[in-house]
Structures are given as C-alpha cells and as structure tokens.
C-alpha cells in the first residue's frame, strides 16, 4: 500500500450532527459525507456555525448528538492525520521555525528529519527569512502563512482551514491561496470556510452552504454558483442575505 493509502482516513461521514452550548442548539442535524479528493468550501453568513462545524469534525468539540465517522484505513487514529488552521491562529512564544518544529515533534519525528521538513515548509510559504524571528511579532498575514506551514508540515490527509485569508490584503490572500493550492496538489484534502465569494469560486470543488446552524445545500461548486437550489444560498451569493433576517419570514 502506498503511504497515502495507508494514511487514508477519508471518507468522513457526519450524521445528524448536533451541537449545543449555552443552552442553545448551534448546529442542527447536519449530515454530509466528505469523500477523498475535492476541495470543500463551507459558505454562510456570520454566526452560521461554520467554525463550529469544522471544530466538531476536527474533534475539538463533542457533539450533543449524531455521529462523526472516519472510514479510511487509518481511521483508528484519525487525529494523527488531520490538522487545522484556526480563524485566529495561536502562535507559540518561540521562533517561527520552532513553531513548525513543535508540531513535528508531536508527531514523533526525529531531530534531523524535522530540520529538513521545517526548512522545506518555510521555503514553500516564503517565510525562510523570518525563520528565527519570534512568531508572535509577525504581521497578521505572516502569522496566517506560518499557521498554514505548521499545519501542513505534519502531512495531514485532511486540512481544516477556518477563514485562512480573513482580513488579509489582496496580495497576501493570493499568496495564501497559492499555498492552499500547493497543499491540495500534494494530496491533502482541503475543507475550509470563507466569506470571500471570489475565493470560494477559485478554490471550491464542492460547496456547503450553512445558515443558522443548518446545512441548507451541498452541491458541486459550478452548480452552486450557477443555480443554487436553496433560496437563502441564492440571496447569500447576491449579497442579500443578512444574518439578522428571519429565514422563516423570508420564505413566506
């Protein structure tokens, strides 16, 4: 078996997934199957539950009910084969290189192999000249790149990205998208959220549309952008869906 197949944890099946916090039901009966291959972009207005869904899938939150099932050959230890970049990445109080090295050491990689891998990651993300800077003084965009590099370094099969380019300038956004593209081409399954419709069009193979904790539509990207089935998805694409709108009244 090839390395990729041995490490395969996909497909990921989520079934009737529900999450509650603070007495509120924030994710409501979400069912979906993430197959190996395509890039998934989760769209939806603020507060739709996108970040919560990613964290549930990544195993950081426990669902109130429903199932999260990894079905691949390496599914007995799915945590080892996934990584996540948070909406607000946390940099450890160490240098840039040490941040990546830390992630690798947690995967039990030996020192020499780590060194090579760290350098490769820094190069691929254009951070080489910052290798020895303290990570927390980097600009926001540089920190996003570092977060990507750190997550990618462990060669995850699945990479969750929560708004990886929020509040970045166009050039930085472009750079990050290039890195995401490289990660995808290297065989890592991308599951991400974004508010940037242009970015969704550029990246997505598959689109999930969420609103108020529900998954309202999942379609191939082309179909989604051409003729979304869900009325609110249509409104969202046209920039007309506001999170404070009452979906019930809209539909009537």
């Amino acid at each position, binding site marked *: 078996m090839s390395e990729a197949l041995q490490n395969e944890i996909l497909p990921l099946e989520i079934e009737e997934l529900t999450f509650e916090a603070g007495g509120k039901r924030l994710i409501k009966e979400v069912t979906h199957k993430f197959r190996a291959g395509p890039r998934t972009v989760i769209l939806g207005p603020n507060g739709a539950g996108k970040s919560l869904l990613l*964290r549930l899938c*990544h195993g*950081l939150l426990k669902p109130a009910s429903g199932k999260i099932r990894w079905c691949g050959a390496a599914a007995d230890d799915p*945590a*080892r084969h996934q*990584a*996540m970049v*948070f909406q607000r*990445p*946390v940099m*450890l*109080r*160490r240098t840039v290189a040490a941040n990546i090295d*830390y*992630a690798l050491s*947690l*995967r039990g990689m030996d020192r020499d192999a780590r060194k090579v891998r760290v350098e490769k990651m820094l190069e691929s993300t254009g951070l080489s000249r910052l290798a020895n800077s*303290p*990570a*927390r*003084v980097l600009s926001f965009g540089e920190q996003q790149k570092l977060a990507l590099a*750190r997550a990618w370094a*462990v060669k995850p099969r699945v990479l969750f990205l929560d708004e990886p380019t929020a509040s970045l300038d166009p050039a930085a956004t472009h750079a990050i998208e290039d890195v995401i593209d490289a990660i995808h081409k290297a065989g890592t399954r991308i599951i991400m959220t974004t508010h940037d419709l242009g970015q969704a069009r550029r990246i997505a193979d598959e689109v999930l549309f969420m609103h108020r904790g529900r998954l309202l539509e999942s379609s191939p990207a082309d179909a989604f952008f051409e003729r979304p089935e869900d009325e609110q998805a249509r409104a969202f694409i046209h920039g007309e869906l506001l999170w404070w709108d009452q979906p019930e009244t809209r539909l009537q």
Partner: protein
Amino acid sequence: MNDFSSAFTAALSLLASGDADLAEIIALSLQVSLGAVFIATCIGMPLGAATALYKFPGRRTVVVILNALMGLPPVVVGLIVYLLLSRMGPFGVLGLLFTPTAMVFAQVILIVPIIAALSRQIVEDLWREYDEQLRSLGAGPLRCMATLLWDGRFSLLTAVLAGFGRASAEVGAVMIVGGNIDHVTRVMTTSIALEVSKGNLAMALGLGMVLIVLSLAINGSAFLLKESGLRKHA
C-alpha cells in the same frame, strides 16, 4: 537621627572592610533562600500547572488549600517544622533540627503555596488561549503542561520572585528551626534581629542594607529579563 547616621557610617565601613563574618552570613542566607526557591519552584510550578490544567478529584480542595497557605505566618511554619524535626518528632532521627537543611525545608513549605498559586493563575490564563491549538496539534496532557510552563516562562518568573521575596525576608521560620547559631545557621534576618537586641546597630544596619541591595538586584535583573522576553515574544 544621630544614632542613625553614626550607625550608617559604621555599617558602610563594616561593609567596605569585607568582614568575614558578614560575608559568611550573607552567603548562607543566599544559599538557604535560593535553595528553597529552587526546590519550591520544582514542586510548586508543576503543582500549580496541574491544578490549572487537569480535572482531578480534589482539585478544588487543592486550590483552596494552596490559596489559604499563601498567607501562612512564618513562625507557625517554623513551629510545625520544629515539631516534625525535633528529636521527639516523626523525622527526629534525621537530626536535621538547627541545620541549614531544616531552614530550607521550612522555607520550602512557606513558599510552595505562593509559587503554586501564582503559577496556577498564569498557566490557566495561557491555557485558555492555547487549549484548542495545542489539542489540534496533538499535544497530550503532559506535553501541554510542559509547553505552557515554557511559554509562560517570563510571566512565571514573577511567581518565582514572589517566592524569593518571601523566603529572603522572613525571619520567624528560620529562627525557630535554625536556631540562629553562629557560623552554622545564622542568616541575615536572624542576625539583624539579634544585633538589634544587642544594640549593635551598625552591624544590623549593614546587614539590612545588604539585604535590600541583594533583593533589589535580583528583582531588578529578573524584571529586565522578563520585560525583554515579553517584548520579544509578545
């Protein structure tokens, strides 16, 4: 006032002369307090971090006890350690009473709660920030603790300093378990108390000045270290 200025001059000349007794007392003081701080840090920091990170049975009790123990009167600690180490006590056979080891022991008890309680607060705050990120990276409980202690190192210096401040300033515990024996267990604070009672104000004031200068120097350098570290790693 006259008393003070003459004592002050005498103290300065005593210091300048490099009095051997004085040097011995200062050295022993540092040895005892720094030793106690070192040991208490090794115990208190992991203890504080563990109470911040892990949900174990009795955790809240530990937290309450640690906080309550922060304000222990040194003389009471001294008394308890005295009872433990006295010939009739459970550890009497060790023959530790009136030795520097006993003084270190008493000071460790005195400052472990301080270092643990302050560390707990610092680690808890850091954990709130790091929690999901570390779990996502795949860090287990022990690794999380090590990471938080390391990443909190500059803030944690404050906890160590607080411990050192208390250890170097207290007189009650070392007096009782050390006995203030000349050339054996005489440290700065106990000998200040003794010299004052003997009316030897020059020696007392000289020691007092050294104590303050040492404390300033140690706190000052730790402060600079902490500031530069925090600035660097934001």
